[in-house]
């Protein structure tokens, strides 16, 4: 079973593990572990990276990395919370595999999260002359 496998491989790096319905698993982890966890899920367990969704919450900026295990159709969604809202930073996963490049660029411009080590961090969707420091998906 892939669920047990994931749990075993990620070990004590993850918390708040909970299942929702048949095919959804949510868990959270610390921002410093992001590269390691993504590498295990993507490279070793052969999951497909569906997307990442960023959100501005009262507690901080939250990113959920959604991975799809296509053999059984299960989704594994790993959540990280970046508490520092003024200068949010996290390691980039785009140098592990190129498919994550665009979504990180999008989160960078929409939420202002700095992805450390991203090969090509520049505007994706907004106009070139969009004001610096204004992020459409930031609340308030």
């Amino acid at each position, binding site marked *: 079973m892939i669920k047990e496998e994931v749990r075993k491989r990620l070990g004590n790096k993850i918390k708040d593990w909970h299942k929702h319905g048949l095919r959804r698993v949510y868990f959270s982890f610390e921002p410093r572990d992001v590269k390691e966890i993504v590498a295990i899920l993507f490279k070793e367990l052969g999951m497909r990276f569906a997307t990442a969704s960023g959100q501005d919450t009262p507690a901080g900026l939250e990113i959920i990395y959604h991975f799809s295990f296509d053999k059984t*159709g299960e989704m594994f969604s790993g959540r990280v919370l970046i508490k520092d809202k003024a200068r949010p930073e996290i390691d980039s996963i785009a140098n592990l595999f190129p498919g994550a490049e665009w*979504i990180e660029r999008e989160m960078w411009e929409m939420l202002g999260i700095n992805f450390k080590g991203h090969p090509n961090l520049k505007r994706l969707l907004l106009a070139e002359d969009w004001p610096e420091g204004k992020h459409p*998906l930031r609340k308030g």
Partner: protein
Amino acid sequence: MSHKIVIPIGPYHPLQEEPEFFRLYVDGEKVVDIDIVIGYMHRGIEELSEHNHFDQVPFLVERICGICSHSHPNAYVLAVEDILGGERNVVPERALYIRTIIDEMQRIHSHLLWLGLAGHFIGYNTVWMWAWRYREPILDMFEMITGNRQHYAMCKVGGVRRDIRPQDIPILRKALDELVPVIDMFKGAVMDDPVIQARLKGIGILNRQQAIDWCAVGPTARAAGLDIDVRRDEPYGVTDRLKWNVIIEKDGDIFAKTKVRILELYESINMIRQCLDKLPEGPIDADIKDIPPGEGIGRVEAPRGECFHYVRADGTNRPIRHKIRAPSYMNVASNKVAAVGGTISDAAITLAAVDPCYCCTERTAVLEKGSEKKIMNGFDLIKLSQEKTEKIRNNKDNRD
């Protein structure tokens, strides 16, 4: 690189729909790098969605894309129903069947549309005109069932908005029956034609490992040998109660992508027929009142690949976060490897082969380093592509 030339394609092109901007770096005829600039279509739908209540959002997300305008609302309602405890536990049987019928009809219309445009790009305008002509009966069926040729507004949380009337079913069956010989014709015309094979085989290859690394989805991934299809992996509607096949090819070139799409047309027709056979009686809407707090993910196999929606609710009548990931978002990015290494004349079809909502140019400027400057208009790139086909065709004729 001393002779590096930049060819901007875009953002406006006479024949394609969406503006997108590609910067091709070429060395002689060969494409050495490509820079993709998007954002000409960005309307901030994710943010707008947070200001609309749950029943309004389907109309909004429908307008993300006009070609897969059933996939987005479908994925959204699946996400909301995931919060409520799963589609199967919420939605009435008949509504599940109707959702699948509309979904597959949309796949037929979308694949025919792509086939036509691909034909145009390689200089087979007849294919374009034919494909779009035979697409019309499907649009008529949409108009009959949903009331609009596009933007069907069928999905709502807990069911569908409109029923399929019993008197419509024979008409729909007849339209499908008439479509089969047409697809047979396309299959013959495209797959057996040596010129088309020469143009499409071995061009724009995205191999299996690249497809994994770029997280490609849909026909683009299936043509590269990845066995993924949301309809089978995570069934929605009634896709698990029907008999159908996932079409997989190994080569990853444009020919394989074309083949996957043509063969999928047969599967879609087959699925609609089975749905019509089994269509049960009953209500079409569960009348959902409140959405509890929680988060849900909805996935749908749109004609272009997996369409992903993530919705979070906090117990009010609006989503507090709605993340949308359209399939082209992954596939267009993979053009970066598919187009590099090919020639300029293959670029038009390669960039179009992932079936993006792709758009090229109002004019193309070829900048020779520093001094020389040549302005080509958007047709020239297609013309270049069409001339190549013509050349291959003539060579073949001479040999025969």
